Every structure is written in C-alpha cells, then in structure tokens.
C-alpha cells in the first residue's frame, strides 16, 4: 500500500462565506408557583413571542421546572451550553440576558491579549538568515 499524505481539510470559518448564528437553541425554564419566577412568567407571556419571531434561526423551548429558580439555557453550534439563572429578575433584565445568550459564541470565556487569530500562513513568509542579500551593519 502506497504511503498517503495527510489530507488537509478546509477548516470551518463561520462568517467568511455563510454565517450561522452560534446560538442554535434556547431553553426557558420557569416555575408556576415560586415567586422568583414572577418576572420570567411575565417575560414568557409578553416578550418571548416577539423575541422568537425576531430570531427564527433559534429554536425556542419553554418548559416548567417546578420548585426551582428560572433558568435560560443557550445551546451553541460548538456543542457547549450556557445557563443563566434569572431568579427575581424583571422582564427587561431577562430580555437582556436572553440577548446576551443569543449573541454569545458559546466558547468558554478566556482572557486573550492578541486581537487577531489567524490560521492562514504568513503572507510574507518566514524570515531566513540564509536567504536575501547581505546586510551591512
């Protein structure tokens, strides 16, 4: 069997051609009885229909979670999920949290110092001491 080189597969770079929103699903959990869910229940009644209509690319699930605090969970295309507890929050605050989950990338939060991440080869090549003309000091 002949030796085969490792084939390079094009890495997915979301947004270069097509763009898919990283947040693919959002779960809204609430409790009918508990007072910490009061804002969540009113958010689900008033604001969630327009939020879902404005974001047709996100699957929205609403389910009760009795005797527990209300939670919003976002599921992302990289397989991770983010959960935010929204106990005792007002509907406007919950809307902000839902927007945060919508815009997030799903990655774990990291402190990065370099603004640019690139997987391209260096455009100008790597410097070599053995090539080019002799520089005088």
């Amino acid at each position: 069997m002949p030796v085969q080189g490792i084939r390079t597969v094009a890495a997915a770079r979301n947004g270069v051609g097509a763009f898919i929103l990283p947040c693919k699903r959002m779960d809204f959990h609430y409790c009918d009885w508990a007072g910490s869910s009061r804002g969540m229940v009113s958010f689900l009644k008033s604001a969630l229909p327009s939020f879902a209509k404005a974001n047709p690319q996100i699957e929205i699930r609403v389910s009760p979670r009795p005797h527990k605090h209300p939670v919003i969970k976002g599921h992302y295309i990289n397989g991770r999920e983010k959960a935010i507890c929204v106990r005792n929050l007002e509907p406007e605050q919950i809307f902000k949290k839902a927007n945060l989950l919508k815009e997030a990338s799903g990655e774990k939060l990291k402190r990065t110092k370099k603004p640019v991440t690139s997987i391209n080869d260096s455009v100008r090549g790597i410097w070599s001491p053995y090539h080019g003309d002799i520089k005088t000091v």
Partner: protein
Amino acid sequence: MFARSVLRKALALPFEQTPSSTTLFRATLSTTTSTSTSTSPNPESPLSASPRAQFNNPTHQQHQPPVTPSSAASTPASTPYTTPQTSSHIPTHKQPLAPTFEAPLKVTSSLLELLPHLTAQRAHYITAHVHAKPYLVTAGDHLRLPFLMANVQPGDVIRLNRASVIGSRDFTLKGKPYIDERMFECRARVVGVDSEPMRYKEKTKRRQRHVRTIKSKERYTMLRIMDVKVKTKEELVQEGAVVVEGQDQATLEVKS
C-alpha cells in the same frame, strides 16, 4: 469620530455571499418598518397588512432592540423570509450612505506601473485601523475588537475603510499615513459578542485595614474578515481615478 474615520457598513453584499441567518430575521422585521412608515419607494403588496397588524402591538415592540429596524433590509411581500442577496434587494432609503468625495482619486503613473504586480500576487494582508488602532489581518481571520461596537447585530457586514498598509509577499502599498479608501475593499462580518472572565481587583489604601474588591467584565465585538482586495488598475481607472505626476498619497515598494 467613529463614523467619520473608521467604519462604514458595506455598501453592497457581493453576489457570492451566502445568505446569513441573521439577515433572515432582519428581513422579516423590515417589512413592518417599511409598511408602518409607508415611505418605501416600492410599495408592498396588500399582503403586508397582516404583519403590520401583528407588529404594531406596543407590548411586543418595547422589547425590540433599537438597532434592528433601522438597519433592516426589505424583501418582497410574496416571499417574506428571503434574504437580501444584493444591494438591489434593499430599499434605497435603508441602504447605508455612500461616502462623498470632493476630488477624484489621484494616483501617480509610477504607482500604476507597479500596481498590477501587487494585485496579481494573491494572499494580501492589510493593516486596518479601527479607532486609530492597527490590526494586521488577512482574509478569514478572526478579529476581537477591544470594545463593544454600537448598533451592530451578529451577521452584519461592515467595511473597514481605513488602512495604512496593504501588501502581498513581495509588494507593499504604504499610505501617508493612510491609503485612500477607494483603492481597496476590506469587509468584515460581525460574528457576535464575546466577554472576558470576571476580573477582580483589590483596592487598598495605606494604613487602612479595609480592602475593597471591584469587579469588571468587559464585552468585545468579534469580527471575521471576509475579504481583502486591492483594486486593479482597470477598476481604478473605471471608477474615475486621475493619473498625476509627482508626489503621491501612497507608495508601492518592492521587497528587497
């Protein structure tokens, strides 16, 4: 300063761009704004009456982010969920403002001589400036701006119009200090908003036993560079560039 110097929404989506899902939802929103204001140059069919009735409910609209209706794009009423592919699908009053220039672009003949070498050598890099900070990027790069950009949504395409250096492997086009924005195209897509982990800082005063802990958590806008393109000599001439002699605003250098 921000609008003047740095960024401008892309004037047109290129044809080969695959429709984004975010523009999809903005397309649905836009039918409401265009019908409710009724200033659209091309009036919608009577089908648009039903979304108007739905969206004008004030309880629904108060939670809408303020950005979306202004930057939304309209679609024909027969296909309410199609994505705008080109600028012709977007009504004129919603298209971003084209920059106005007093004078045509002036290039020297010496630069025009060398320019085909730069445009022909693929893989360009660009040093784009955003808020006076330089970012050396190539097409496909991921750029995390050190601030949260206002009035953008994930999926938006913006155009970086201030650059100091554009180059390929052997050629470099340098601006003095910036290259005229009519000589290149650099588009970036807003991918989303990222944030850093919570930062704790302990504040102390001398001879006081009290220690105050402050928290901060910054948010950053993330961009994906879609393309870096230097306009060819023919495109420059076609767009009305004037060939002059003498000192130029930009110089093209060859790697020694």
